[in-house]
């Protein structure tokens, strides 16, 4: 399934709703493009909603890390919301749970940016 990404504003945070697979090729490229566009618009409080992402490979993980550091370098914060089990397990396996702030409740996630 091709990746799709749309974004919306909520409480001063840009919530990016992502669905599909974040893998080598179009999936990773779309995530990169989306985050780059948000940074160009000075949106640096970003919450990636991964509720509909059921698959990420090492390229996708690399893209998530790249997005995280890119936002961080601009003085912002990129956090993750609603991980599926496979993505949750993958982040745990690769120790990226120690890097990303991960939330399962959107309201709590949004409040964490204040």
């Amino acid at each position, binding site marked *: 399934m091709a990746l799709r990404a749309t974004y919306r504003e909520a409480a001063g945070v840009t919530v990016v709703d992502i669905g599909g697979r974040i*893998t*080598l*090729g179009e999936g990773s490229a779309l995530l990169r493009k989306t985050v780059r566009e948000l940074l160009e618009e000075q949106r640096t409080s970003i919450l990636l909603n991964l509720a509909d992402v059921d698959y990420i*490979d*090492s*390229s996708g*993980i*690399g*893209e998530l*890390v*790249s997005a*995280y*550091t890119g936002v961080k370098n601009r003085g912002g914060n990129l956090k993750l919301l609603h991980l599926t*089990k*496979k993505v*949750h*397990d*993958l982040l*745990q*396996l*690769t*120790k*990226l749970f*120690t*890097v990303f702030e991960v939330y399962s409740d959107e309201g709590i996630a949004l409040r964490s940016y204040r």
Partner: protein
Amino acid sequence: MTQDAKHLEMTLETQVESVNLAEEMCLRVAEAAGFGEDDCYRIGMSVREGVINAFHYGNEERPEKKIHLALDLTSEKMIIHVLDEGKGFDLGRVPDPLAQENLLSTSGRGIFLMRAFMDEFQVVPGRTGGAEIIMSKRLPRSGNPGTNGKTGQGAAPKKEA
């Protein structure tokens, strides 16, 4: 190899599409061999990572080079070979992606994932001069308790065979 052993091989172009193609082919074989959903996910991911490794690091994304994929299905396990036409590499020199200084690296997790998801994993010099990844997963019916229903967090990377 037993009488029931099956062998499949294909030559893939050095292009992104080959990654999905290899994954799909191996998933079909794995499903037909009786692997459950979680094991199929792990096999599919490992094949993806093996082919990505050949595409990016081995063949350096050069389209004139090929990726050679082979599957052996025995009565005990599914064995996957991914061979590139690069210069080969020393597995011992691959950085540990779990080391604190590498956690924010944007690459270098493919080998780790293959080791974590497969029962056996090794890299040998290939006949092309490149690297040949050989990895296998035991069939559920051959006494392997399997990993279905378990989460990836318990999967420790395996030592080289």
